[in-house]
């Protein structure tokens, strides 16, 4: 019996008459490197939004470690160990990376409601933030305003921030999207070096990255799961080639 950490049952999301997510039942095993691929408009980001509570589903349920989290707000899911990055950076533009990561750690430690002592007073939190930023190659820019950082650095902060919450399940929505070629390897090596005990669900267009990173692949087409299997199975599946890989061939 394998250990299922994230599961959806009959997940559906409609926008008016358009069905963005159609009856998706997905299971992600603990420690997996699971990739979610599919052509543009297949509903990958919508699915991530449903998993993380950014959008409520029209039907169906989401389970995290066996518990129904369908009705939970985003911040409660994060508290339970499920977090994500965004395809388009969602950062606090006026913050410095240091402030950003400090806040995430403070929330994780349950001290961010405190209003009577300065953030600087929590040396443990600030040190951990400095440490984390250094590991993501952001030590030199930790005191700069986020909005002026190069895109690649912002992308790294996007991942570092998700990481600061110490997720057990991490959903990466196209982590290398829009990163210029010369900054790309930095993002990719961070993704490749993520700790093995963190379960990762990755949305990605870059097939090289998917095949080198993932152990299991789900193919999403028109909002529904079209195929699922190991990397070898998906790579050999002629139907997948036709609908998806054909694009790149």
């Amino acid at each position: 019996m394998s250990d299922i950490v994230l599961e959806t049952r009959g997940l559906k999301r409609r926008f008016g008459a358009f069905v963005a997510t159609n009856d998706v039942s997905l299971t992600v095993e603990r420690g997996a490197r699971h990739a979610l691929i599919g052509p543009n408009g297949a509903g990958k980001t919508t699915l991530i939004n449903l998993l993380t509570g950014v959008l409520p589903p029209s039907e169906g349920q989401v389970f995290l470690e066996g518990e129904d989290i369908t009705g939970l707000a985003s911040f409660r899911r994060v508290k339970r160990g499920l977090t994500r990055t965004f395809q388009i950076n969602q950062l606090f533009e006026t913050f410095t990376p240091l402030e950003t990561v400090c806040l995430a750690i403070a929330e994780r430690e349950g001290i961010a409601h405190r209003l009577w002592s300065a953030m600087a007073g929590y040396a443990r939190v600030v040190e951990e933030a400095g440490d984390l930023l250094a590991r993501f190659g952001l030590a030199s820019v930790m005191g700069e305003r986020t909005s002026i950082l190069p895109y690649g650095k912002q992308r790294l902060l996007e991942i570092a921030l998700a990481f600061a919450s110490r997720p057990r399940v991490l959903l990466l929505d196209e982590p290398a999207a829009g990163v210029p070629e010369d900054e790309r390897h930095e993002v990719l090596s961070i993704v490749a070096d993520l700790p093995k005990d963190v379960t990762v669900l990755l949305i990605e267009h870059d097939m090289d990255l998917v095949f080198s990173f993932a152990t299991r692949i789900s193919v999403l087409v028109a909002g529904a799961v079209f195929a699922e299997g190991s990397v070898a199975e998906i790579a050999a599946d002629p139907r997948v080639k036709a609908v998806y890989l054909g694009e790149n061939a």
Partner: protein
Amino acid sequence: MTMVQQEALVSRQSSDAAAEGRAVRLMKRRSRIRIYEIVIWLAAVAAYFLLPSKMLILTEIAILALFAVSLDLVLGFAGIVSLGHAAFFGVGAYAAGLLALHYTAEPVIGLFVAALVAGLLGFLTSFLILRGSDLTRLMTTLGIGLMMAEVANQMAWLTGGADGLSGFSLNPILGLFEFDLYGKTGYLYCLAVLFVGMMIMRRIAFSPFGLSLKAIKSNPMRAGMISVPARKRVVVVYTIAAMFAGIAGALLAQTTSFVSPDVLAFHRSADVLMVLTIGGTGYLYGGVFGAVLFTLVKDALSVVTPQYWMFWIGLILVVLVLIGRERLNRWAAYLPERLSGKEREQ
């Protein structure tokens, strides 16, 4: 482990330690006192000695500043627009007036009671602003403000209705400092309360709580994704802001020995929003700078054109908003860091 690996490990550890140390230093620098803060408090004390005939307008400025700074907690930090902040100011004023009239004329107790009553109203109404867009919140707060004004008007048996609340006088502050005819004690009293209030709000601003408020304002979706419980935080900050607005109202009631129904008027909510727009949001002192500028300009204009001063205030506001605070901030960025107050929002 080879020598090279060992060296790499050591250098990595030391660079991490360097990053930790730098993080702590940067974070400490964030909350240090800036020169403009010291200047403004020295100027406020100096005004007491240099402008003995201007005590009333100085008192007005101090009260308006406290009121505006309390709105900054809500608007500049949590990003909640309000057109009804006078509800808390007015309720605080009435609470202080009624307390002095019927129970005790000790001013400091009056402040606490006003804070309590206004805070309770803030807590209860905070649940109404949790949902919806800026426009919804603008209308909700406006509605609450209008309702409070009408309630005060109708409950004439308690509030004096349109005549206002009068016939009370305050005891010496803490039994030591008696209010004088020239308003000297009144000014120092208001200044002291403003100072204490500012120091409390400043502490809140640099706390993890204050940082989480700015995150909610900056990007609510991401704030949720680092597990910031936005609603809880908004309820807390709205209650705190209401308490300080109530204290500002109490100061007005105590220093004038009168509560006019005007304390709940719509224009007071609009004025304070204007004050904050002039001074800038998100760094607290905008409320102080805005209150000084607004009151002085209003005073000067009403001498020059007693009937049309509102026109000029309106013009200044339009020009200020059109030029944009970013551009003004870019000019300020050329100042040394301690002078420029980098914390302010763009």
